[in-house]
């Protein structure tokens, strides 16, 4: 799932300080799971902003809501009736949801309330780690189910670089060397012969190098 982290309150205060009516819109999807932009985080941010502006002597109406998924238009439609009431909106959804909210209400000012970080897993509550970079051409079948694009700092394709030491990456000793993990996994699977086979250069045109991407599925389009 997409992982995000809440923006510092002071940054949000600076963004919205000149408005009088504000809607904070959370998302019940990924950002609820990583506790960055769900209903509870919406409540906390709204309470914090109300405290700040009240003590500053400024009257501000701050309303709270969440959508099932801000990245789907159907779930934004219920906001259409009330969007006009607000000077601005803060989206606590990921960058996708925030942009989609702005697309749905083009006349409204929409600010992000979270920093969207990566696609990853919940290692435990409050501990998330990157696992996929959406390169558009999955090579997990060749690498023992561990992605060198997401797990290797250099996105190496043929094995570890010289910076790999005792299973750790030279970028940071807390980062596991992706290729060390791949080697250990392939050894467990009895597939170390994969290292004998040269890997063809990766076609990065399916990644960001090909510009903004789009999927067109004519088979399921309505």
């Amino acid at each position: 799932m997409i992982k995000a982290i809440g923006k510092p309150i002071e940054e949000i205060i600076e963004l919205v300080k000149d408005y009088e009516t504000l809607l904070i819109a959370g998302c019940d999807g990924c950002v609820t799971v990583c506790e960055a932009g769900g209903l509870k985080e919406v409540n906390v941010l709204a309470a914090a902003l109300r405290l700040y502006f009240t003590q500053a002597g400024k009257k501000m109406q701050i309303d709270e809501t969440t959508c099932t998924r801000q990245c789907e238009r159907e779930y934004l439609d219920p906001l259409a009736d009330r969007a006009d009431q607000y000077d601005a909106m803060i989206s606590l959804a990921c960058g996708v949801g925030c942009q989609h909210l702005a697309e749905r209400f083009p006349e409204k000012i929409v600010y992000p309330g979270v920093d969207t970080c990566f696609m990853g897993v919940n290692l435990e509550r409050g501990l998330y780690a990157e696992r996929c970079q959406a390169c558009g051409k999955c090579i997990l079948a060749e690498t023992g189910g561990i992605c060198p694009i997401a797990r290797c700092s250099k996105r190496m394709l043929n094995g570890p670089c010289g910076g790999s030491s005792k299973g750790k990456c030279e970028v940071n000793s807390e980062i596991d060397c992706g290729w060390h993990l791949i080697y250990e996994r392939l050894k467990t699977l009895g597939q170390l012969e994969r290292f004998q086979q040269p890997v063809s250069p990766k076609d990065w045109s399916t990644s960001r190098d090909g510009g903004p991407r789009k999927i067109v599925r004519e088979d399921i389009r309505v």
Partner: protein
Amino acid sequence: MRLQYPANIKIIKVPCTGRVDITHMLSAFEEGADGVFVAGCLEGDCHYLKGNLRARKRVNYVKQILDKVKIGGERIEMYNLSAGMGGRFAEIAREMGTRIKELGPSPINLTEGRRESHIGEEAA
């Protein structure tokens, strides 16, 4: 025991301080509390194992928020004491009451149209 503690403290009982959420603590300040203290069991003595430890983390988080929104993190505190420590409870109540009196009313209560200040407290 007939121990005396400040009469302007409102006690909110919860089954465990693990139930006390960030939103509850912020709500208390929004409602006009000048200060809040969370009284949990002694560390290591939680019936639910980690309730009081989680409460402490949340109180520390709320302290950071209160500092950022200019209310002041020193207006909230976490204490650990057992149900048998009535004397300590009264002492904490007086200690917190004194701290809040020294700080003065919450900035929320100094703005126009707000009701008279009072001290709020959460205890478990």
